[in-house]
C-alpha cells in the first residue's frame, strides 16, 4: 500500500495559496547569548530549503523557533498566513503549529518504551483521535514506505540509528504535516547509515513536500534543495540556488566554511 504523503498534505492545506512559511526579523536570545539576530525567510509550498552553516550558527534554534519549541523573542513568523510568534504565543497557536509542522531530530527521540508501530500510531490516536485500526493502517503504510515493513514490532533499542531515524520520519509524517523540519537528522548516524535516511528525504522532496532541512550533507543540498541558506553567528550571510551558493559563493565567510566542509 502506497501513501502519497505530500499529496495528503497538499490537499489538507489547499485553501491557503500564499507562502507556507514566512519569517520576518526573528530574534532569539538565551540569556546573554544572542543566537538569532534578525532572520528573514520565505518558504513556498513544495520548496525544499537547506540551511547550512558552522555549528553554533543558530540553524537548529531557527527550526525550534518555527515549531515553537523555543518561542522567538522578536520578529514575526507566519505559517500559512497566520501569525504564530510574538509574546502571546498561547496554547491555541502552538496547537495550530504542531498540527501543521512536523520535525525530525538529530537524536531521533523515539519513545523507547514503544515499538516502531506504536511510535508511529501513538500521537495519531491521542492527538488526531484516529481509531486504533485506522492509526495502525497508516503507521504500517508509512513504515513500509520508509522500508521498515519487517521492523514494525521492534523496539527502538533493537534498531540501528538509520532505522530509528526512518521510524522518526514516519512518526512525523503520520500527523499529515504541511511542512517538515529536519534538524541535522544524519549527524548522529554512522556513515554507512546516512544514505538510507537521505533517500527517504529525497523521495519526500520529489513528492512535493515542503521541507526545511538543516544539514551538513552538501551533496544532498546540491541535488535536492531548491534554495540554500548559509547562516553564521545568527544571521543569514548568503542565500540562493544551490549551484550559486555551493559553487560560486560571494561572501568570504561562506567560502571559508565551504572550504572547510568540502575539503574532505
Amino acid at each position, binding site marked *: 500500500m502506497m501513501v502519497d504523503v505530500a499529496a495528503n498534505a497538499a490537499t489538507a492545506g489547499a485553501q491557503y495559496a500564499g507562502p507556507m512559511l514566512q519569517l520576518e526579523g526573528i530574534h532569539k536570545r538565551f540569556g546573554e547569548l544572542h543566537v538569532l539576530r534578525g532572520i528573514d525567510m520565505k518558504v513556498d509550498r513544495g520548496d525544499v530549503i537547506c540551511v547550512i552553516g558552522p555549528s553554533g550558527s543558530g540553524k537548529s534554534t531557527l527550526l525550534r523557533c518555527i515549531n515553537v519549541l523555543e518561542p522567538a523573542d522578536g520578529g514575526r513568523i507566519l505559517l500559512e498566513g497566520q501569525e504564530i510568534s510574538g509574546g502571546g504565543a498561547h496554547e491555541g497557536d502552538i496547537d495550530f503549529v*504542531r498540527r501543521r509542522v512536523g520535525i525530525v531530530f538529530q537524536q531521533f527521540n523515539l519513545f523507547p518504551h514503544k515499538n516502531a508501530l506504536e511510535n508511529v500510531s501513538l500521537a495519531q490516536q491521542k492527538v488526531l483521535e484516529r481509531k486504533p485500526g485506522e492509526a495502525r493502517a497508516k503507521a504500517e503504510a508509512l513504515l513500509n514506505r520508509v522500508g521498515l515493513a519487517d521492523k514494525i514490532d521492534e523496539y527502538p533499542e533493537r534498531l540501528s540509528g538509520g532505522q530509528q531515524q526512518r521510524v522518526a520520519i514516519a512518526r512525523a509524517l503520520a500527523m499529515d504535516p504541511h511542512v517538515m523540519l529536519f534538524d541535522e537528522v544524519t549527524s548522529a548516524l554512522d556513515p554507512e547509515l546516512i544514505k538510507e535516511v537521505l533517500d527517504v528525504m529525497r523521495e519526500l522532496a520529489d513528492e512535493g513536500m515542503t521541507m526545511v532541512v538543516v544539514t551538513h550533507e552538501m551533496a544532498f543540498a546540491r541535488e535536492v534543495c531548491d534554495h540554500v541558506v548559509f547562516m553564521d553567528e545568527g544571521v543569514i550571510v548568503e542565500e540562493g540556488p544551490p549551484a550559486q551558493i555551493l559553487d560560486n559563493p560571494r561572501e568570504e565567510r561562506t567560502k571559508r566554511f565551504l572550504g572547510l566542509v568540502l575539503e574532505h
Partner: protein
Amino acid sequence: MTILGDSGISIFFHQYFDFQIISDNFTFVLKGFGETVELSILAGALSLIWGLVLALLRQLPGRGLLPVRFLAISYIDVFRGIPLLLVIFLISGSIPFLTFLPQSVRIPEWLGKPDPFWYGVFAITLTYGAYMAEVYRAGIEAVPGGQMEAARSLGMNHAQAMRYVIVPQAVRKVIPPLLNDFIALMKDTSLVSSIALIEVVNAGQTVQAETFNSSALTLGAVMFLVVTIPLARLVDRLIAGQQARFQRGAPRMESAL
C-alpha cells in the same frame, strides 16, 4: 572456658531465643505481623499514588501554575523534614477532636480495622507520599528532554506527554528505589505501635513485658526479615538488570545541543 561462663551464655540465649516462649506466642506475634503486612500494603499503595500526584503537581509547566508547584514543594519539604512518629501523634491525638468531621472519619473503623490502624495509614501515606514524590521526580528528570520535545512536537499537550511518554519511562526507572522506600515504610509501620495498634512490635513488646524475655521480639524480627531480605535481593536484581540494559546502550547519547 569463656569470660561469661556457661551460665552467662545460657542466660543470654534464653533472653533472646527461648523456644518455649516463641512457640507459646507464635500465633499472637504472627497475628500482629499480619496487621503489619496489611498496614504496609495499604499505606504503601496509597503512598505510591499520592507520591505520583505530588510529583506531577510539582512538574506542572507555566507561570500561572507557580502557586501549585510552590504548594507541592512546600508539602514535600515539610513532610520529609518531620519525623513520622510526630505525624502519627499529630493525627491520632487531634482528628478525634475535630468535631466538624463526621464520627466515622474522626474515629474510623472501616473494614473492621481499629482506628489506630487508619491513623497509621493516614500518617504513613502523608509522609511516604512526600518521599516517593522525590523518587518519582528523579525518575521524571532522568527521562531525556528530547522525549518531551518529541511528544510536544507531535501535538500532544503537557498532560498527554506526561501520561503516555514521560511517566511510563520514569516509573520503570524508579521501581528499585520505590521498592527500597517500601522496605523502609514496612519497618516504619512499627511506629504505629505507639498509638496502641497491636502489630508485630507491639505484640512482641507485650510478651516481653509479661515474661521479662525478648524472644517474642526476636520472632518478630525474623518475620520482618523473611519479607525484607527477599525484597532487598529483588531490588538488587532489578538494578543489575537496568545497568546491563544501560551498558548495552539502550538510552542513546544525549550530547547534542
